[in-house]
């Protein structure tokens, strides 16, 4: 009896793992198979033509990169402040758990709600119109829990001896934060940002009413009325009316590029995640 369960349970786990891997590989394979024919040098350097059925995705890719960069820059200081509050400043356990609850709640907000929120507050109330900055702010809010939690974990994992040694030298708390805590945990910020963005960068819902349009934008020229093109929205629109076979090829090509982009984000995050383990053993 016991021996049977020793065999069956691992086998079940193995099957599930295989299934998950097979799904991922299959998905990548399908997208690659259809997308690769569209890829070429000019696909990256040329701008979109003829409502998406010709040309490339230069400004779409650039727009998505702008949104990503804005989200990174905006979320980093906020996440740092939140993480320091949680892991260093807050001394009461109940206050810490309340802040933790806030982060988990924020993480659970659907992306379309962020989109509507951004539309009401920034597009309408502040009167910014569609702007890349709104997209950056919304993506920053979406990845904030991931970034913060990842940074908190790094700060928590920091060996206590470093704090004690720096305190013993007579350094003030602010000096310890800048000289000990942040230098040894900033990789958590990078990891969290990249992993968060790997999820959020492909979202259409938060940016479609607030930051991006389908055609007619290039580089942003300011903040108000300054939307960008973007990959997810491009795919969304093309997918809605992809009867034209020319559009179909471009659609799959764009999807493949987006997929490679988010894979790249995860891959860049990898060495930073491994760093954690190196130092933990040192």
């Amino acid at each position, binding site marked *: 009896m016991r021996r049977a369960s020793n065999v069956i349970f691992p086998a079940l786990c193995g099957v599930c793992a295989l299934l998950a891997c097979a799904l991922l590989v299959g998905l990548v394979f399908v997208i690659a198979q259809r997308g690769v024919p569209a890829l070429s040098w000019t696909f990256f350097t040329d701008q979109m033509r003829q409502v998406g059925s010709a040309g490339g995705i230069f400004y779409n890719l650039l727009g998505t990169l702008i949104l990503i960069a804005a989200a990174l820059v905006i979320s980093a200081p906020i996440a740092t402040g939140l993480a320091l509050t949680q892991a260093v400043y807050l*001394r009461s356990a109940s206050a810490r758990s309340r802040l933790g609850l806030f982060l988990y709640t924020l993480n659970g907000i659907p992306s379309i709600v962020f989109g509507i929120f951004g539309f009401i507050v920034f597009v309408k109330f502040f009167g910014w119109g569609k702007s890349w900055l709104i997209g950056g702010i919304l993506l920053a809010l979406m990845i904030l829990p991931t970034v913060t939690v990842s940074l908190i974990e790094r700060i928590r994992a920091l060996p206590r*001896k*470093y*704090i*004690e*040694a*720096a*305190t*013993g*030298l*007579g*350094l*003030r708390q602010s*000096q310890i934060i800048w*000289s*000990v805590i942040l230098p*040894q945990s900033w990789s958590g910020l990078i990891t969290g940002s990249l992993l968060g963005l790997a999820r959020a960068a492909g979202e259409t819902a938060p940016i479609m009413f607030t930051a991006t349009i389908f055609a007619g934008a290039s580089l942003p020229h300011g903040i108000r009325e300054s939307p960008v093109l973007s990959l997810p929205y491009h795919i969304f629109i093309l997918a809605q009316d992809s009867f034209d076979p020319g559009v179909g090829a471009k659609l799959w090509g764009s999807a493949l590029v987006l997929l490679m982009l988010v894979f790249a984000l995860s891959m860049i995050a990898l060495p930073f995640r491994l760093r954690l383990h190196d*130092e933990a053993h*040192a």
Partner: protein
Amino acid sequence: MMKLMHKEAESHDTTASADATFRVRNLNVTARGKTLLRDVNVSIAPRQVFGIIGPSGAGKSTFLRCLNRLTDLTPEIRVSGDVRFEGTSVRDPSVDPDALRARIGFLFQQPVVFPKSIIENVLFGVRRLRRLSRGVLAEVAERALREAALWNEVRDRLNDSALALSVGQQQRLCLARALASEPEAILMDEPTSALDPKSTQAIEELILKLKERHTIVLVTHNIGQARRVTDWLACICVRNGAGTVAETACCDALLENPQCQEVVEYLGSGSSLP
């Protein structure tokens, strides 16, 4: 002459307390309802090596951490009583604990080097505590490394990672880091227990040299070390479930002729290495 004198804790306190570097009165430490230290009274005279011995878990490290308020880092620890450093109460509300700690060096059992270069480690505290020019900082680093007898070993590789040093070198680097900001006193918590005999000897020689200018409080499990470097010794033992100073005396007197039953037992227990 001094070394043969024997005094009970009380009489030692009264004679030496006037110009004591540290004067501890009725120190009580509790954590989560458990008493860690009860009624500790000690005076530590300037420019001497004051040794602390005692069984494991008796509260030696806790006592040491009360002297520079490193106990503040552990919120559940409650300290009461009067601890004075150079005459001022360390727990007085007007005292800035960071400024206090800057005047008192601390050496841990395991050397704590930051994952940075050797030179950055030496200057880690002092460059943030004082505004010094680059030239002065270089001088400070050299002086501190010389005082810690490390200069000759690292002078050619000051910009290499400090993690590449041996543990013994790392401990001397930590000492140099403490010395860089010219502390008046240095607290050492079993600084050689992680080191090989040769590095231990190097640290012991340094302690004897440093006491010319610094007050040193040294926690050690090594009775031979206590005999070699300390002037005064206190034995912290557990009495009624809490650590307390069972006996204070000058080094030889306490080791040769202990008065207290707990101290006799501790010294005779064989836990003490030669």
